[in-house]
């Protein structure tokens, strides 16, 4: 065993150490003087001293900045020293690269029974106690679920050794075991079997499975292949995976008895009745839908020659347990959806939306088992950086929301868009075919115990004892290699169909592909593993990352395997597709799983659920005629301008609205060269863009527009309007930058608590009613705006059990939108361009402060959530789009959180210009004036600036729509808003406003 320590030379800035020091001081409030970081490589292999010296010097050390020691420590001074490394079995990407580097360097094959392990050593000085060190480990440096750490104090001799991972070495012998499970038991025992095995199957499902194995035909057929009447563990696991909420969307397909007031109705599947139905209605009028709801991602036309592909996933539970690993796997996982759509798309953009607890949440209120929101935020951000940047996909759009409701259950939405030629090798690229006799090939990473039970795990609430088996670290480079190789294979026509290994692992990917031909035969022992000791059922359901399953025609297998070999990508034939009607899995020639395809895919009984809508009436503040917010604040000053200035600053500086530049800059949004409207725009590249425009083909001016809409605050009051608002927001963001309102496709992404009523979940029926209302809102708004759903995702059970309480997230619906812009050179950004330009407000303002940021300042919810008039909205969007296409619009900014005040202020300071607006000119419904006009969050509105010479043409283009000129862009750097009779409501310098906007997350 060799231990190699690599340290920085004296005088070289330790950027990593400094960053850790900053976090210890700022996040953990522990005062430390300095932090040095050292890289440790522990090599367990039979190398000579000379070989190890070469490894240390020629591979692991930079001769300009670093020095190295072998089997001894640097003996630099420290108050405490902390070493952190991954636990055995956790993916260690640096170690894998080191092994490859050693092979290149020494020109040898790395010994099969050898290993490399990496760790970080931190030497900390200052008055730091051992307790502090423990806090630094648990609170910042190590996640005990996946990492181990060691602490030394002054005077200790650092002699860390990594526990040898013999149990998991690949050469270790083990006996595969397949257990039989007796289902001929009582109901209680059936449920116990489900619970103990994390199968997440309910009693009705367990009974149907039991009855299937009692069927005489089934018994006879099983006997022929050597199986008993009892199911094997792997059979039960496959059924649990395939029938999981995650894979089968049982709640969305349930029959629901829905009661609202006096009225009760029966809904056969929310998905079919509202989501798919909306798309079916819209499809009658739109000809650009290509493949919806049937594949890993939705597919729509881009330019007649290419299709666009889009999918958004959630990765909530894993990110709560290990934010970094959870987010990496979230990103690389959703990458594989477009990659596994049709015969595979090129990946062209990522989008991420996060919901976290507030970064300043008091530590003392946090249960020990829950990571602090700031840590989750930073870990997730880092994960997205590594997942997105390393794979080389620009992260072009996103949102980050903060609310105490997400302290226990953070939400991590990751989305990826792709582009594919409509025809590849003369065949439509969005169609999958599999012929009996095609070989089943697993490509990419190997299988480990990581990620076992991800699909069923996502269907249970987290609690204080949740295990880490469902958490894994992604290996972006392994995936990028696979992606490159599969692109070549696709162009060479070497495979017929492809799908990803995500939830449920091989059991899902092979199971789904088998549906195209009617069966499969798998030899599971051929599946390559990271280490020995995986039981057949584990091989079958493990969700280890970076794997795709492809169907390769036998005559092309040699070429396919040769290509993979030449690209250093592992590919293994693990079986054959068949038309036997059976999923047939063998291990070492012995049958371990034999199930009817029909039963696996169609045998699941539907759920029957009840939903009851029980709305609550909230306090609704009233205002005095002069705009004073009398019942909102007790320490009323008489200076209304100061009060409203403060309100605007506070909203701009709230975590939800404030600049996310700190995050955005750490994501690569330039890679692939398509960036047209970036996430940050304006004079100083720091204004918040409404949507991103990318130009995927350098030779064409046609662009793709990406945006999102989400507002859980509205859902706390009414989920119908939340859904309508989210769709409208996503669409108007697309329109704001120049996207065509008639070419917008959307994705729905529901994150909810547990909506199934039970004794333990007494308001389950209300949560389900909230879901019903949300899907109704989805249907009405999508049909009204003509924006079809093309794919979606749902995640229930976002709950945390803490002692006797269950804490659920508020209903959260993310709408992600993808649109088209005919000519990217017509795109518009949100920053005011020139003094003298006229400021317009488009769309009508109503008294709709329910769930608004203005109310939130006073901790009030209100009731009047913004509604959507889809006829008005669509007409406005079309007119605005025409004006933008004619080049009449200088800037356009979506009006949402914080209303007109925030949108206009952002437009001004992003342009480095002042702005004067008279809000008494704003088109508003009756009884809406003063403060309500400034801060109401009514949907379907924009702040637009137009140069005076274009004003007439602009007004002509907008004729018949609700809009008004309300002010002017000015040279002086002040933002002013006046009310009736010229009362000054807001008067602030744009520098101050911008500083308020930028300060909170400048970390």
């Amino acid at each position, binding site marked *: 065993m060799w231990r190699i320590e690599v340290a920085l030379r004296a005088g070289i800035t330790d950027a990593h150490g400094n960053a850790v020091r900053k976090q210890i001081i700022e996040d953990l409030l522990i005062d430390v003087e300095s932090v040095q970081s050292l890289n440790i490589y522990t090599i367990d292999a039979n190398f000579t001293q000379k070989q190890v010296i070469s490894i240390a010097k020629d591979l692991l050390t930079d001769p*300009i900045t670093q020095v190295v020691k072998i089997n001894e420590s640097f003996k630099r001074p420290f108050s405490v020293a902390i070493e952190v490394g991954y636990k055995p079995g956790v993916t260690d990407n640096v170690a894998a690269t080191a092994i490859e580097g050693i092979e*290149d360097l020494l020109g040898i094959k790395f010994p099969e029974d050898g290993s490399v392990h990496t760790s970080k050593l931190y030497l900390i000085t200052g008055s730091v106690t051992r307790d502090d060190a423990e806090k630094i480990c648990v609170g910042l440096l190590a996640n005990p679920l996946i990492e181990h750490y060691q602490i030394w104090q002054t005077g200790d001799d650092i002699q860390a050794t990594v526990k040898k991972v013999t149990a998991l070495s690949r050469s270790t012998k083990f006996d595969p075991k397949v257990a039989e499970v007796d289902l001929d038991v009582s109901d209680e025992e059936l449920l116990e079997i489900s619970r103990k095995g994390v199968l997440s199957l309910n009693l009705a499902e367990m009974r149907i499975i039991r009855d299937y194995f009692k069927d005489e035909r089934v018994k006879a057929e099983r006997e022929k292949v050597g199986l008993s009447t009892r199911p094997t563990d792997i059979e039960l696991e496959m059924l649990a995976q395939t029938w999981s909420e995650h894979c089968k969307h049982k709640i969305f397909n349930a029959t629901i008895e829905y009661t609202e007031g006096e009225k009760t109705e029966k809904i056969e599947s929310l998905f079919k009745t509202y989501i798919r139905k909306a798309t079916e209605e819209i499809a009658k009028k739109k000809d650009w839908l290509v493949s919806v709801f049937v594949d890993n991602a939705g597919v729509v036309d881009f330019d007649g020659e290419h299709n666009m592909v889009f999918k958004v996933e959630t990765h909530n539970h894993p990110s709560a347990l290990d934010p970094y690993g959870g987010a990496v796997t979230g990103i690389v996982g959703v990458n594989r959806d477009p990659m596994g759509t049709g015969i595979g798309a090129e990946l062209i953009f990522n989008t991420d939306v996060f919901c976290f607890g507030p970064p300043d949440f008091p530590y003392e209120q946090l249960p020990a088992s829950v990571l602090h929101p700031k840590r989750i935020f930073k870990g997730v951000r880092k994960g997205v950086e590594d997942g997105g940047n390393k794979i080389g996909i620009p992260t072009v759009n996103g949102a980050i929301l903060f609310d105490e409701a997400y302290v226990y259950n953070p939400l991590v939405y990751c989305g990826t868009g792709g582009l594919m030629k409509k025809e590849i090798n003369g065949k439509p690229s969005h169609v999958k075919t599999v012929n009996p006799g095609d070989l089943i090939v697993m490509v990419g990473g190997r299988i480990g115990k990581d990620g076992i039970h991800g699909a069923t795990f996502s269907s249970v609430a987290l609690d204080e004892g949740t295990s880490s088996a469902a958490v894994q670290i992604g290996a972006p480079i392994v995936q*990028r290699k696979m992606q490159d190789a599969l692109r070549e294979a696709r162009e060479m026509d070497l495979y017929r169909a492809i799908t990803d290994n995500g939830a449920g692992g091989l059991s899902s990917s092979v199971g789904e592909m088998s549906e195209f031909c009617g069966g499969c035969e798998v030899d599971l022992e051929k599946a390559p593993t990271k280490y020995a000791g995986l039981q057949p059922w584990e091989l079958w359901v493990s969700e280890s990352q970076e794997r795709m399953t492809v169907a390769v025609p036998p005559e092309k297998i040699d070429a396919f395997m040769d290509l993979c070999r030449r690209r250093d990508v592992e590919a293994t034939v693990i079986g054959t597709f068949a038309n036997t009607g059976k999923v047939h899995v063998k291990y070492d020639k012995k049958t371990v799983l034999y199930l009817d395809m029909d039963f696996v895919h169609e045998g699941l009984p539907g759920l029957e659920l009840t939903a009851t809508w029980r709305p609550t009436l909230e306090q609704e503040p009233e205002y005095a005629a002069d705009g004073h917010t009398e019942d909102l604040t007790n320490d009323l000053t008489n200076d209304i301008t100061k009060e409203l200035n403060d309100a605007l600053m506070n909203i701009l500086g709230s975590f939800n609205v404030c600049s996310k530049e700190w995050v955005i800059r750490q994501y690569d949004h*330039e890679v692939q*060269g398509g960036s047209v409207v970036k996430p940050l725009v304006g004079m100083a590249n720091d204004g918040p863009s409404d949507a991103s425009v990318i130009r995927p083909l350098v030779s064409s001016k046609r662009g793709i527009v990406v945006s999102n809409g989400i507002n859980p605050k509205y859902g706390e009051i009414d989920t119908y309007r939340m859904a309508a608002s989210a769709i409208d927001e996503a669409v108007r963001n697309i329109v704001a930058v120049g996207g065509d309102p008639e070419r917008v496709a959307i994705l729905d992404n529901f994150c909810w608590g547990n909506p199934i009523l039970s004794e333990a979940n007494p308001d389950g029926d209300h949560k389900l009613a909230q879901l019903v209302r949300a899907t109704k809102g989805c249907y009405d708004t999508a049909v009204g705006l003509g924006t079809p759903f093309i794919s979606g995702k749902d995640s229930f059970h976002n709950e945390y059990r803490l002692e006797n309480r269950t804490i659920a997230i508020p209903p959260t619906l993310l709408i992600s939108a993808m649109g088209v812009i005919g000519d990217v050179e017509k795109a518009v950004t949100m920053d005011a361009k020139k003094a003298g330009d006229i400021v317009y407000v488009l769309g009508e303002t109503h008294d709709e402060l329910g769930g608004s940021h203005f109310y939130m300042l006073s901790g009030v919810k209100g009731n009047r959530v913004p509604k959507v008039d889809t006829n008005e909205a669509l007409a406005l969007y079309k007119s605005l789009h025409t004006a933008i296409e004619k080049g009449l619009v200088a800037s356009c900014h979506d009006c949402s959180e914080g209303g007109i005040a925030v949108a206009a202020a952002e437009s001004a300071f992003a342009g480095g210009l002042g702005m004067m607006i008279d809000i008494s000119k704003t088109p508003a419904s009756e009884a809406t004036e003063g403060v309500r006009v400034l801060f109401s969050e009514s949907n379907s509105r924009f702040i637009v600036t137009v140069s005076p010479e274009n004003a007439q043409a602009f007004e002509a283009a907008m004729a018949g729509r609700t809009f008004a000129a309300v002010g002017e862009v000015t040279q002086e750097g002040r933002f002013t808003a006046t009310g009736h009779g010229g009362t000054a409501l807001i008067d602030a310098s744009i520098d101050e406003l911008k500083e308020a906007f930028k300060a909170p997350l400048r970390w």
Partner: protein
Amino acid sequence: MTNNLNNTLRNNPRNNLRNNLSNKSGDKPRVLVLLAAGINRDKDAQDAFTLAGAEAERVHINDIADGTKHLADYQILMLPGGFSFGDDIASGKVLANKLKYKLKDDLLQFIADGKLILGVCNGFQVMVKLGMLPGIDGDYMRQDVTLTNNDSGKFEDRWVNLKVNPESKCVFTRGIEKGIYVPICHGEGKFIPRDDEVLTRLQENGQVVVRYVDETGEFGTYPVNPNGSVAHIAGICDETGRIFGMMPHPENYIQRTQHPNWTRKDLPDEGDGLAIFKNAVEYVKREL
């Protein structure tokens, strides 16, 4: 050298085929855009060279190592950006070692033949870890400088202004008098020379090609110098000026709409970065 190239082409039927194709499309310089695990700005580089009038092909390193493709068939080698091997251990290190142990002779021959090599971001990191840059005294396999963690400790995507050294012999930046505005996207871009002697030598030799400045052309601290590079150095060339590496991404500003402020400004259709690729193409047409 011309003889060698011709022999190689004649002896390899695949090359003859491609040679014919190439003749058909005129005498476009041929660019090999190197692909390896984790390289991800290969398409960007290919687009830039294509717009500049070259014929750019993405070629996997293993295809060169096993003789399927020949470096000698190309006049320009492009080492694109990305995260080769995940930037594990140190950015560019593992790919540098691969080039050293698998393609050393091909590379040295390529350089000896007077051809051009451009490395951007991770490509630049690979070049300095290999020693191909600065290539002091013509030794292309000795590391004298490095690129390491940004002082900020963060990966950053931001646009920077670069000043081109008019004294530089770099063929890629010839004639570029006004500054270049391009994005950086890196976490390890801080340039550090081995010692003052190396730095002085680079400066005296005209090997310092581009430096970070503000919009008025003055040097500054973060974020003007986005990573804390010694002497504000953003890119260097070898002693011949034919091998050039830089951290910022000229390939990501080749068209007007890539500029972050294009909606505010009157800008030419061509981005600042394209000139670098055009210079390379013209050099090959003129000299090779």
